[in-house]
């Protein structure tokens, strides 16, 4: 909204500094990725040639990983687990945030601060107990066994993000919908939820990225292809011999798992625009 406000008056010096800053940031952010891509395209014998672009790019590494059944399973697991965790976390967070913003109930502060406390909790501290619990509950090495911790650790963030968005929506809109004949749920679904869409997408991306990138839980709470996700699976890649480090395959797999994240962000970025509520009330 107000991001372009300061561009009106810009001296040449300003422009130069801005341009320089932008270049530094972009290079800093992109060099590892370009490196990864270049590595993934190198034939095995040129991996250590120390060049960025060594000529004769090959898709061999990609073919290798997709021939590996372990990787295909891991990809399916990753997509399934991340999507389910995202949907569940966002839906739950929407209800929770709406209630927190609109209702007065005892323990409201407790819920909010409790959620924050969970978000602060170091995940590594619960891995041990969780491992034992999950084995006892037969959740070890299942999708649910990963979805539950992912939801737990992302719900607080989603609730806080969404309550910030709900708070921006004028209460009069809920009331108008109720007077117009809507049940509380209809008012929520047809009026409030669409207006909170940017918040929903923001939280969805955050949850998805967390679940997609997680290595800690995925490595500790899985043991087979049943639920092992890509970050964990990459660690189990082996080269052609025990002395051969499969750098090319790892690079190729990393590129493949980065693509969904980029696609997600590009799709939803367009939707994450604030100001959707402008025009609801006299501004």
């Amino acid at each position, binding site marked *: 909204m107000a991001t372009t406000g300061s561009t009106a008056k810009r001296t040449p010096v300003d422009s130069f500094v801005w341009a320089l800053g932008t270049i530094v940031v972009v290079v800093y952010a992109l060099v590892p990725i370009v490196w990864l891509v270049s590595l993934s395209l190198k034939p095995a014998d040129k991996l250590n040639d120390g060049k960025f672009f060594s000529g004769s790019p090959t898709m061999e590494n990609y073919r290798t990983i997709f021939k590996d059944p372990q990787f295909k399973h891991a990809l399916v697991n990753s997509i399934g687990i991340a999507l389910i965790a995202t949907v569940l976390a966002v839906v739950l967070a929407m209800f929770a945030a709406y209630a927190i913003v609109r209702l007065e109930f005892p323990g409201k502060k407790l819920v909010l601060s409790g959620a924050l406390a969970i978000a602060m909790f170091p995940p590594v501290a619960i891995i041990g107990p969780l491992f034992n619990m999950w084995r006892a509950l037969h959740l070890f090495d299942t999708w649910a066994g990963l979805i539950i911790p992912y939801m737990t650790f992302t719900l607080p963030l989603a609730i806080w993000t969404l309550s910030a968005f709900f708070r921006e929506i004028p209460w*009069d809109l809920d*009331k108008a*919908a109720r007077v*117009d004949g809507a049940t509380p749920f209809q008012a929520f679904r047809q009026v409030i939820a669409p207006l909170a869409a940017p918040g929903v997408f923001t939280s969805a991306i955050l949850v998805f990225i967390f679940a997609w990138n997680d290595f800690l839980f995925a490595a500790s709470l899985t043991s087979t292809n049943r639920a092992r996700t890509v970050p964990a699976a990459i660690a189990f890649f082996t080269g052609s011999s025990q002395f051969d480090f499969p750098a090319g395959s790892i690079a190729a797999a990393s590129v493949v798992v980065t693509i969904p994240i980029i696609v997600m962000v590009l799709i939803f970025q367009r939707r994450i625009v604030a100001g*959707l509520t402008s025009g*609801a*009330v*006299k501004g």
Partner: protein
Amino acid sequence: MSEIVLDKLTKRYGDGYEAVKGADFTVADGEFFILVGPSGCGKSTLLNMIVGLEDITSGELRVDDEVINDVDPKDRNMAMVFQSYAIYPHMTVRDNIAFPLKIKKVPKEEIAKRVDEAAELLELTEHLDRKPVHLSGGQRQRVAMGRAIVREPAAFLMDEPLSNLDAKLRVQMRTVLARLQQRLGTTTVYVTHDQTEAMTLGDRVAVMRRGEVQQVGTPKELYNDPANLFVAGFIGSPAMNLLPAELDGGTVKLPMVDVELPADIRERIGDRASGRHLIAGIRPEHFEDAALVGDPDAPGVTFKAPIDVIEWMGAELYVHFTVEGSAHEELRELAEDLETVGLGPTDEAQIVARLDIHSEAKEGQDTELWLDTRKVLLFDADSGENLTREAAAPATADGS
């Protein structure tokens, strides 16, 4: 089409604060009824209680003899127009207006027909496919109206619908609203803090102060025969002049002149005024330039007034002057409630008089003014009660 009966409605919050205290009146079928009062007087709370957005603590709310205290707002079939308009920003104008019908699962063709009719009535036809963000304030206001009328509800409830519009548009929309209501004949309850809106729009008006209904009546009744000091000071623009007074036999001693009361007024007061602090109320138009009094037989007194400000507005002429006299505490409190500013020092009272435009009064000069003694109102300063009231019925609320 419905009659709304408020039977001792009270709203008490958890902390014991009473926002509405025993509101008790009936809105007749098809009536344009106004709730008016300064901010924080409970008028919006009362409206929300009628529409069902606020719970009723005690009392009964009946629509056509059916108690609806516990009926969900969605089932009350009342349409509300909010001060903020509360238009759904993600829907087009058409979808906004159609929303209540879609919720009610009205057939599609029927929805289209009724939306088009409402849009035509409100001159919104060409904007139907636009999003609210592209509309002007007046157009948004009309969308909110459209959403209300398309339902053919039992009653319209409006919460300061015009107060976000600029002054000129507000006057225009006021007329539009009045016509619309006449044409549809739907019972309407309208909340405003603007006494001009209340007087011009309302069939009947309820004046509220601090959660209590002070008086219910037609604009004329409120203006000519206010139940108490608050109503007298609130209704009318410029406001009624309120002065400390003493009653001595049949004579009222005002700061600037002694006034001999006509016999019928003296009779009405009876002995209720004895031993009481009194406040006299005189409307600006009951003064006149002594040289220009039309009716020589009208009973009146003349006095010299040191005019300090003159406002000439073509058809009207107002003169301001100050008289000495310490104001009663009730007047101070009243001024706070009425949100009047510039009350001046405590030992002075400022008076506005409306004179014939041919008056030759000049700023900074003493002018001989005439006062119609038949029109002087006397109030009990402590209870606020109008002692000169024509209606024999006691005031709706006995003071404050």
